[in-house]
């Protein structure tokens, strides 16, 4: 635990906990979730089975006539010390085969009339779609935005879900306030924007209406 330390400079090829092969830059093991670099849980070494060689002996080659060639054991070779038995890894797992190389890109078919090609993944999608359904690429240029608050308008919207501005751009109804100056008897008409949006504008330029509308997706969480 503690701060994640990747300064060792050593490439961790296998998870210290479960032995699974790791991607080059993984922070966590994809198999067991252990953090890469965590010291392995101590495991007692495997006990060798009695009467069993740790190194498998391949079958001897067969001479013509079907008589197997005698193969001397490694320890009987003159002048050589007995070969040490290889130490199996603490967690015996088969080595994962190399990941297949990515397939060569296939030329995208010509789009059908009314469709367009995603510039990121080449998928053919509806011509009026704002997103590629395959990779999520956003066709920013054709997104409709509210003329008042610049929020993105989902397809088919009649009004902005954030500020309520009608999509056709018509100005919303306003409350008119009439202020009478009793001293000079001058009548002044002021245009009052509904919901006091200007006076409660927050520092990031979003007014109260926008905040309340966006907060519709937010709710106070229930008791746990």
């Amino acid at each position, binding site marked *: 635990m503690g701060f994640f330390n990747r300064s060792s400079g050593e490439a961790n090829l296998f998870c210290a906990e479960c032995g699974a092969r790791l991607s080059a830059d993984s*922070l966590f093991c994809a198999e067991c979730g252990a*953090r890469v670099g965590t010291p392995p849980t101590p495991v007692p070494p495997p006990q060798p089975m009695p009467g069993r060689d740790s190194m498998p002996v391949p079958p001897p080659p067969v001479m013509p006539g079907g008589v197997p060639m005698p193969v001397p054991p490694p320890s009987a070779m003159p002048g050589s010390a007995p070969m040490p038995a290889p130490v199996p890894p603490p967690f015996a797992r088969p080595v994962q085969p190399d990941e297949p190389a990515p397939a060569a890109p296939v030329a995208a078919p010509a789009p059908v009339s009314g469709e367009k090609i995603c510039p990121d993944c080449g998928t053919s999608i509806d011509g009026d779609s704002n997103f590629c359904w395959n*990779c999520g690429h956003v066709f920013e240029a054709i997104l409709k935005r509210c003329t008042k608050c610049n929020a993105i308008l989902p397809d088919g919207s009649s009004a902005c879900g954030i500020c309520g501005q009608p999509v056709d751009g018509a100005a919303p109804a306003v409350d008119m306030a009439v202020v009478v100056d009793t001293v000079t008897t001058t009548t002044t008409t002021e245009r009052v924007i509904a919901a006091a949006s200007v006076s409660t504008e927050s520092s990031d330029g979003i007014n109260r209406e926008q905040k309340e509308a966006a907060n519709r997706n937010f709710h106070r969480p229930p008791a*746990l």
Partner: protein
Amino acid sequence: MQLNTKGQMTYTVDLVFCIDATGSMAPILKAVKENALSFYSDLMKVLNEKNKRVESVRIKLIAFRDYIADGEEAMLVTDFFNLPEQAVEFSNTVNGITHFGGGDIPEDSLEALAYAIRSDWSQSGTKRRQIIVLWSDAPPHPLGFAKGKSDNYPSGMAANFAELTEWWENEQLGYVNRRAKRLILYAPATDIERGYDVETVYPWNNVVENWNNVVHFPSVAGKGLEEFQYEEILSAIVQSI
């Protein structure tokens, strides 16, 4: 193991973004807002480069502040948005978050973390990822700090850090999955050696040092995480999948 037609592992990814929405957090909020709409496609690009296949991505927001100072605005959560189908709705919701309030320096981040842990995680898919990303430029209050002081403090909240640790670590409770859970923490490291007020401050270091599957990117306190770029945040999320 779930494989697609090319024999690659596929993942079901649930993300919970816990965002400190108090007054000092303008820089990171700006970065999140600017990139909210393209987040899914950006994520897919990086995942494709790493040959990781994701079959579903859901994302949820928790905007937190201070129960005592901010009352009803202290803790706001959304449901999970399915991406990319609800990318517009997600983006608009993110862009509606305003940074204000906070009161004293510590915030109620541990309560936000508790709500994140208790999310309605997807149960489908063999390769699941339950990733919580928390951004704060302040230390948290101890759990229960606002209890009895704020009418909005929720009942059923973890009583203390030990109980919250149980929620995170005890798989039998079923809140998060041992293999799927990830916590990516962008928060200041509390300088324990210099001392801190234990009545009002709880050190993030205790989370980092006692919880499994946590990655901590220490931030400068009070600066709104301005030192972190969107690309490195995205990279950290992808590496945790």
